Structures are given as C-alpha cells and as structure tokens.
C-alpha cells in the first residue's frame, strides 16, 4: 500500500508497479500531427517536448502477465486527468470493450448511452464530459502475454 501511494505521487514520465506477476505500465506521449509526403496527415506519438494548453497528450497503458498462470476478468480503468478533456474516438485496445463514465466511475456505458444534466436538462454527453475510460479485455491474458490500450486527452 505504501508503495502504491509513493508511485501515485511520482512525477516521472513513466512509472512501473512491480507486482509479483502482473504489472501495469503507464506512459505519456505528446501527440502531434505530421504531414506525410503525399499530403496526408497522421498522428505521431513522441517523447513529450511541448506540453501546452490545447496540445494533445496520449497515454499508453500496458498490462503484462509475467506470472505462470493466466489472468482473467481483466479491466483497466483510467480517470481522465484533471485539466484535460478526452479526445473523441481516441480510446483503443485490441480485443477490448471500451466504455466511459460521466459520473467519476460509478457507472460505465457506451457513449450513446451516456447522459448528463445540463442547465436542468438531460442531454447526450459529449466526449468532453467523460470522466473515466475503461477497457474490459475480452479474452484472458495468458502467462507471458501483454496487452496495451491507449487514449488521448487534450490539455485545457
């Protein structure tokens, strides 16, 4: 427990919780748009250089089963950091079900099923209203396997 608290306050750009057998890695990137030679644009995840209001920050979260037996019912949950907004459609993860919360993790649902109160009216939530993102792995994680999920936020 003490170890976890220490790590929660770590200011390093990458931290690793070394459990006996299942580990979780959380890494931050600066997401920039680059233009290819043919004029098309794509995102590039790079080492943080300019983390400014309005810029996009990507989180890559890797779960790694270093044990000898499979892990099941794997759920990765991540509150959207304070001072940031979730970027629509940015959450990704192979073989995962992705859901969001607009009530700080009390309930999760698909974006179409999320509503908030706005000026006394119940309205469809937008991606900027999301407070948490959650990935449920559809398959067990075999011993020695890892799975990576990711999403992007924009600094307010």
């Amino acid at each position, binding site marked *: 427990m003490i170890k*976890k608290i220490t*790590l*929660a*306050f*770590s*200011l*390093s*750009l*990458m*931290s*690793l*919780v070394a*459990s006996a*057998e*299942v*580990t*979780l*890695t*959380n*890494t*931050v990137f600066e997401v920039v748009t680059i233009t290819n030679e043919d004029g098309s644009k794509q995102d590039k995840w790079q080492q*943080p*250089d*300019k*983390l*400014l*209001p*309005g810029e996009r*920050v990507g*989180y890559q*979260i890797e*779960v790694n089963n270093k*044990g000898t*037996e*499979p*892990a*099941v*019912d*794997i*759920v*990765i*949950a*991540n*509150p959207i*950091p*304070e*001072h*940031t907004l979730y970027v629509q459609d940015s959450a990704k993860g192979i073989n995962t079900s992705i859901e969001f919360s607009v009530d700080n993790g009390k309930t999760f649902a698909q974006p179409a099923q999320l509503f*908030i*109160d*706005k*000026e*006394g009216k119940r309205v469809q939530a937008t991606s900027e209203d999301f407070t948490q993102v959650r990935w449920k792995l559809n398959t067990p*994680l075999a011993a020695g396997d890892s799975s990576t999920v990711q999403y992007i936020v924009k*600094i*307010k």
Partner: protein
Amino acid sequence: MKKNKFSSVLSTSLIVGSAFIGSNAFAVGTDAGTAISNTATVSFTRGGTPDSEQASVSFNVDEIINVNVTAANASNNITNGDDNVAIAYTVTNTGNGTELFKLLDSINSANNGLPLSSGDLTVYFDTSPTPDGFDPNSINEQLYTGTDISIANDGFITVYIVTDVPNGAALNTKSELLLTAVSQTEAGGIKAGESSFGTVIPTAGEGTTNAIVAAEQGRNNASSELTVTTFDPSKSLVVNINKTILGSTALISNAGTNVITDQKIPGSVVTYFIKVAVENDGATALSISDIIPTDMTYIANSMRVQDAAGSTINIPTYIAPTLPAATPVTYSNFDALTDAADALDGATTSSNAAGRVQSITVDLGDLAIGEYAILLDATINN
C-alpha cells in the same frame, strides 16, 4: 434528495457559465507548471483471487509565452497645440504563466506628419482592472521608466503613450504611434524576445517547465494614429515684425562750428531696429526684407543681426555713429553682416539700375521659437 439534485444542477450551470466567460475573454488554458497526473488501475482475477495494480504518470504543463497588444482607437482626433494627448493601448498576457514584459514606444517614421520626435513621447501604465482614462495626476497611472512589468496570465495592463501636439501641426496631418510589448523570458542564452515562433526555451517556464514562444520574437504591437481634425490658428506659427527707429544723428556745420543733433533732418543717419518674434512654433526659411524709403540712402554694410536661438531681445540703447564717416556702430550681441551676396551671412541688397539700394534682405533660415533682431542704417537725403 430533491434539494441535492437542484444544487447539483445549479453548480453545473455555474461551471458552464464561468467556462464560457473564460474562453471568450482570453484563450489561455491551464496554468503553466500545473501537474497533470494520471493513475490507471487494472483489476483482474488470477487463480480465483481478485487483485489489482495501479500505475501513475505525471507531467507539468509547459509555459506558452504569448502577448497581445491592442489600441483602444485606430485614430484619435486632436487639435494642434493640445497638451497631454494620451493614446490608450491594452497589453494582455495571453500565455498561461506570469510573464515580465518590456514596453517600447515608437513613431512610424513613414507616417509622421505632425511631426513628433521620440523625445516628445512619455509612457504611462495602469494595472487597474478598471482603467478610467489618462489623468497625469491620477495615482493609478505610473510613469514607465523601463522597468519590466509583470503581468499574470489572463491579466492585462493599460498603457498610455502621452504627447503634446505641436502648435504648428497642420489640419489633417497624422502621426502613427506604435506600442510594442516584449517578453523578457530568457534561459541558457535563449531570449524569448529574439526567438521565432515555436522556439522552446528549456526550463524557462513556471516551475522550471519549458517555455514555448507563441508570439513571433516574443512580442506584439499595435498602432494608433493621431489626426489633427481641428485646427486652432491661434496656436500655430505667428511671426511678428516690429520696426522702430532706434535713434538718429545729424551733423550741422556752419562756419567751422559743428553741432550734433538727433533731429531728423536732411543728412541725418537713422538707425532702424527690426524685431522679429517667432511664436508658437518654429519657422522655416524665414527671410526679412525691408524697403529703403525714397529720399533715404542705405549705408553700405550696416545690416547687423542678433539670431541666437530662443533669445529674448530688449531694445538696445542707441549709440550714435561718428559723423561724417557714419561707420555702422557695433552693438553687443549683434553680428555685422556684409551686403555681398555671398550666401554666408544671408544678407543681400537689391539695387536699381542707378545703383541705389532699394531694399535689403536678411535670410534668417529656420528659426526656433524666440526673438531675433536686425539693425540697419540709412541717411536722409539732402
């Protein structure tokens, strides 16, 4: 329960309201140096036992260096001779950290018809959130003496460039004044004020974050014109010329007896005193001509001038020339001029075909506000 829901709705709408105002006023964003931390949790079951792990990562928001300068008015209507005309500008720190700025005032030399010189300008600033216009006696306005001014992110100051309008500024003439605000951030030899857009200055931001220059050369400027829309003739250039007789001397001879008289009789040498007063504004290429009266003869090389800039001239005490030679007398503070058109001293004469000097001219050139004087002698013909 009902009450809880009501307050929840209320607080939501308040947040929406304040965010609305914030984003409209300025686009700054999260403060530089703010830590953004992210903790991910994985829960899983292994060997029938539920377990979980966490991983955190944090970074600090870097600093944007950005500044916006606006002029309250694109053009300001003035009258020639106005004192303490103030042009208002607003300097806003549109970055996300507190920043030191230097202010530079300048005149667009290509648009300076009044004209003004840099020495005519004084800069005042007001850090009040509710500026009330320029008043030189207000405690809100501080004279800017070159000391860097700290402006918080989202904050602004009001700056006044103050000048007196030249008396001689002509109707519809304009002068354009620029105010520039320059970020003073620098680290490791990299100055924001000399850096192009996008330059990263490591560790120069709040809390040793990186600072990124988001305004070209770390600066911004705005210009505003002064336009003379009302002309007050009483304040413009006035040249007053006053010609008096300083004195005269005549020599009356009869049977070897000489009598000196100041009566103006044939043969009297009259000394004229011409005072030229330049008022309100400097004069350009000022030339004074005087016609020698018929029945009088100009005494050669008798023009004398007093033309020290900005002088006040009192009528000199008359000194009678020695007759019959009538050599022009030297007066203190006056310089003797020669009649020859040598262009060196500006004095010339104009003669008729018979060789009589009909008029004299003294070219005084460009004159500052002040008094000037010319002396000349002529004899009353017999």
